[in-house]
C-alpha cells in the first residue's frame, strides 16, 4: 500500500509536466469560477478536450485543478464586486462584500481563501479515508442493487435540481433514452438508427454533454444584445494584498464552524446533484444559527465567510467520494471526469480503487496538491481576473463555441460528433427555455448504459423481479428514490400539515427496515436507532403537542 501511495505521489509531485498542467488547470479554474455566467462545470468541460492526449492521471489532475480552483475563484468576484462568480459562492457575498466595503478587502479575501483551503483539506482527508471503505461496501452490491442505486441517483438529481418534478423526470428519461440510440452492448443490435450508419455508434457521451451544457449556456449568454456587448463585469474591482497571517488566525479560532461547514460540504457533495450551490447556503445558515453574534451576519461577520467557503470546497471531496467508490457521478463535473476516465478505458466502480490503485491514489494526492496551488495562485489570478473581466461576453462565447467544435472533433476525429454536440446544444437551449432542468438529462445520458447493463445482468441471473425489493441494498436505494421524489412535495407542504409531520419519521422508518436485514450487527444497531428516531419524531409532532394542549 505504502509503495503505491509513494508511486502515486511521485507521478504527481515529482512529474513537472503533471505539476505544470495542474498549475494551468487551477489558474483556469479560478478564472472560470470568478467570471459571472461561467460555472466550474463549464471550466472542467472546456478542459476536457485538452486531456485527450494526456495520460489518465495527468488528465484527471488537470481537471481536479480546475475543479478546486473554480470553487475558490468564485470568492474573488463576489467579494470585490458583490456579484457571485458561481452559485457556490452566493452566501460568501452576504458577509464578504460588506467586509470589503468596510475597508478590509485583504482580510476578507484572506479569510475566504484560507477557509477554502482548510475546507478542501478536511474533505481530502475524508475522501482518502471514506472512499476505499465505501468502495468496500460497494463490493456487496449485485446488479439489482446497482440498478436501484442508479435509479436513486437519477431521482435525487430530479428532486434537487429545482423546478417542476415532472419536467425533471421527463429530462432524466430523455437522457436515458438518448443513451439507448445505437448498437446495444448486450446483443449488438442496432436501435433507433433509422438507417443512418453514423447512429450505429450511438451518441458519444461527451459531445452530448458539451452540447447540452456548454453550447446551450453560451447561447443563453449572448441572448441579450446589450449584455452580450458589455464587458463581463462593469465593476471589476482593484488589486488587493491578501492578509494571510491574520486570516489564518481568525479561521483557526473558529474551528468548530470550520469543521461543521466542511462536513456539511462533504455530505452535500456525496449526495448526487447536491453541489456547492446548496452546501454554501446550508453552511451559512447553520453558522448563523450557531453564532452568538447573529445580528452581525450580513455586516461583514467573519463566520459568515468561513462557513460558505469551507463548505463549497469540501463539496468537491464529497462528490469525488461517490465517483471514486461507486462510479456514480455526484454532479456534472464528476460526470465529465467519469467520461475522461472512460476515454482511457477505465471504468470507475467499487473495484476501481483495487484495480487502479495508482490512479486512485493519484487522484487523492492531486486533490491535496490542487489546494496548495489554489492558495499560491490567488494573487496572480487576481491580476488576470481584472484583465479578463474587460472582455465582452460575445467575444468569449464566439471563441468558445469554435473551441467546443475543435475539442469535440478531437475526441474521435469524427465530424459527426460536432453535429451531435450542435443538435444537443439546441435541445439543451430550448429545454432550458421551457423550464426543464438539464442535470437529470445529463446524468441520464451518463448512467443510461450502466443502468441497462445492470438490469440485463440481473435478469440474466434470475427472472425473478421481486429480487429488486427483496434484496436489502436494492430495497434501501428504491426507498431512497421514492423519498427523494416526494421531497419537493414535503418542501412545499405547510409546516404544521399532517404530511409534513409524517414525511421525516416515515422516511427514516422505511429506510431502517432494509438496514436491519443486512446480516451485519452494526447495520442492525443503526436500523434500530433509526426506528427509535422515527418514533421520537412521531411522538414529538403528534403526542407532545396534545399533552401540552
Amino acid at each position, binding site marked *: 500500500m505504502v509503495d503505491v501511495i509513494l508511486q502515486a505521489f511521485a507521478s504527481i509531485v515529482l512529474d513537472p509536466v503533471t505539476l505544470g498542467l495542474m498549475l494551468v488547470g487551477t489558474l483556469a479554474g479560478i478564472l472560470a469560477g470568478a467570471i459571472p455566467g461561467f460555472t466550474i462545470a463549464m471550466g472542467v468541460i472546456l478542459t476536457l478536450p485538452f486531456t485527450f492526449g494526456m495520460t489518465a492521471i495527468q488528465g484527471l489532475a488537470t481537471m481536479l485543478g480546475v475543479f478546486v480552483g473554480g470553487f475558490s475563484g468564485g470568492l474573488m468576484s463576489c467579494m470585490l464586486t458583490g456579484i457571485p462568480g458561481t452559485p457556490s459562492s452566493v452566501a460568501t457575498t452576504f458577509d464578504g462584500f460588506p467586509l470589503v466595503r468596510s475597508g478590509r478587502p485583504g482580510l476578507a479575501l484572506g479569510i475566504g481563501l484560507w477557509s477554502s483551503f482548510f475546507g478542501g483539506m478536511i474533505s481530502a482527508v475524508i475522501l482518502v479515508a471514506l472512499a476505499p471503505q465505501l468502495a468496500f461496501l460497494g463490493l456487496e452490491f449485485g446488479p439489482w442493487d446497482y440498478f436501484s442505486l442508479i435509479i436513486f441517483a437519477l431521482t435525487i438529481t430530479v428532486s434537487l435540481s429545482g423546478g417542476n418534478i415532472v419536467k425533471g423526470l421527463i429530462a432524466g428519461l430523455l437522457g436515458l433514452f438518448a443513451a439507448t440510440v445505437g448498437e446495444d452492448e448486450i446483443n449488438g443490435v442496432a436501435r433507433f438508427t433509422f438507417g443512418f450508419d453514423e447512429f450505429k455508434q450511438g451518441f458519444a457521451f461527451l459531445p452530448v454533454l458539451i452540447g447540452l451544457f456548454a453550447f446551450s449556456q453560451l447561447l443563453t449568454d449572448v441572448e441579450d444584445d446589450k449584455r452580450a456587448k458589455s464587458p463581463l463585469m462593469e465593476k471589476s474591482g482593484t488589486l488587493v494584498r491578501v492578509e494571510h497571517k491574520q486570516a489564518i488566525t481568525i479561521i483557526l479560532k473558529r474551528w468548530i464552524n470550520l469543521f461543521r461547514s466542511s462536513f456539511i460540504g462533504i455530505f452535500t457533495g456525496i449526495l448526487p446533484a447536491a453541489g456547492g450551490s446548496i452546501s454554501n447556503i446550508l453552511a451559512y445558515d447553520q453558522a448563523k444559527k450557531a453564532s452568538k453574534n447573529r445580528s452581525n451576519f450580513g455586516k461583514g461577520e467573519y463566520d459568515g465567510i468561513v462557513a460558505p467557503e469551507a463548505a463549497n470546497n469540501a463539496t468537491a471531496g464529497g462528490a469525488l467520494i461517490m465517483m471514486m467508490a461507486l462510479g456514480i457521478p455526484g454532479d456534472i463535473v464528476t460526470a465529465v471526469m467519469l467520461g475522461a476516465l472512460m476515454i482511457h478505458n477505465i471504468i470507475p466502480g467499487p473495484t476501481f480503487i483495487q484495480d487502479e490503485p495508482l490512479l486512485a491514489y493519484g487522484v487523492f494526492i492531486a486533490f491535496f496538491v490542487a489546494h496548495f496551488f489554489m492558495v499560491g495562485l490567488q494573487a496572480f489570478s487576481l491580476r488576470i481576473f481584472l484583465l479578463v473581466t474587460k472582455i465582452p461576453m460575445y467575444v468569449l462565447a464566439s471563441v468558445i463555441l469554435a473551441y467546443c467544435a475543435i475539442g469535440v472533433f478531437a475526441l474521435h476525429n469524427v465530424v459527426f460528433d*460536432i453535429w451531435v454536440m450542435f443538435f444537443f446544444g439546441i435541445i439543451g437551449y430550448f429545454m432550458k427555455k421551457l423550464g426543464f432542468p438539464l442535470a437529470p438529462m445529463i446524468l441520464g445520458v451518463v448512467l443510461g448504459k450502466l443502468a441497462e447493463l445492470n438490469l440485463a445482468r440481473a435478469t440474466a441471473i434470475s427472472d425473478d423481479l421481486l429480487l429488486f425489493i427483496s434484496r436489502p441494498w436494492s430495497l434501501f436505494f428504491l426507498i431512497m428514490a421514492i423519498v427523494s421524489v416526494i421531497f419537493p412535495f414535503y418542501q412545499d407542504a405547510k409546516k404544521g400539515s399532517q404530511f409534513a409531520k409524517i414525511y421525516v419519521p416515515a422516511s427514516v422508518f422505511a429506510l431502517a427496515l432494509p438496514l436491519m436485514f443486512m446480516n451485519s450487527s452494526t447495520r442492525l444497531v443503526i436500523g434500530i436507532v433509526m426506528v427509535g428516531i422515527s418514533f421520537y419524531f412521531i411522538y414529538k409532532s403528534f403526542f407532545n403537542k396534545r399533552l401540552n394542549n
Partner: protein
Amino acid sequence: MKLNKDKILAVFLLLFCGVMINSSFHIEDPGYQGMKASYWPRIILWLLSIMSLVMLVKSFSSENKIDAKKSFSLENINFLQFKNALICFGMFVFFLSFLEYLGMLIGGILFVFGLLTFLGGRTLKNSLNHLFISIITIGVMWSIFTFGLKVILPEGEILKIW
C-alpha cells in the same frame, strides 16, 4: 381550450414516444437468451409517455390560471429574443456544412469572425478587431491541437491545394 407551451410540449412528447415505441418493435431480435434489446428502451418510453400525459393533464388543470396574454400564439412569441441564438445556429450549420472544403483552420476563423461581426456590430474598427481576434484565437487553438496534442484536424480542400 387555450394553448400553452406545456400543452404543446406534452403532445409533442407523446407523439415522439408513439413513434419511438413503434420503432422499438422493429428492433432486431437475434434470439439470444436474456434481456432483449428492445426491453429497456420500451420501459423508458412508456415511463416517458406516462410523464408526458401527467404534464398534459397538469397543463389542462392549470388552464384557468393562464391569462390570455400568456396563452400560446405566434403573436406572443418574441422572436427577437432568439435573434442571437438563431444567428449562432445558422453560423454553426454553415461552419459544419463547409468544414469539408474550408477545413478547421479557415472554417474556424470564418466562423468566429462571422459570429463576432453579427453579434458585436459591423463598424470598420470592430471588423478589424474581430478579424484579429479570430485569427489569433483559432490559430493558437489549431496549433495546440495539431502540433501539441497531435490531433489531425480537418484540413479542407483549400489548404490541400497548397
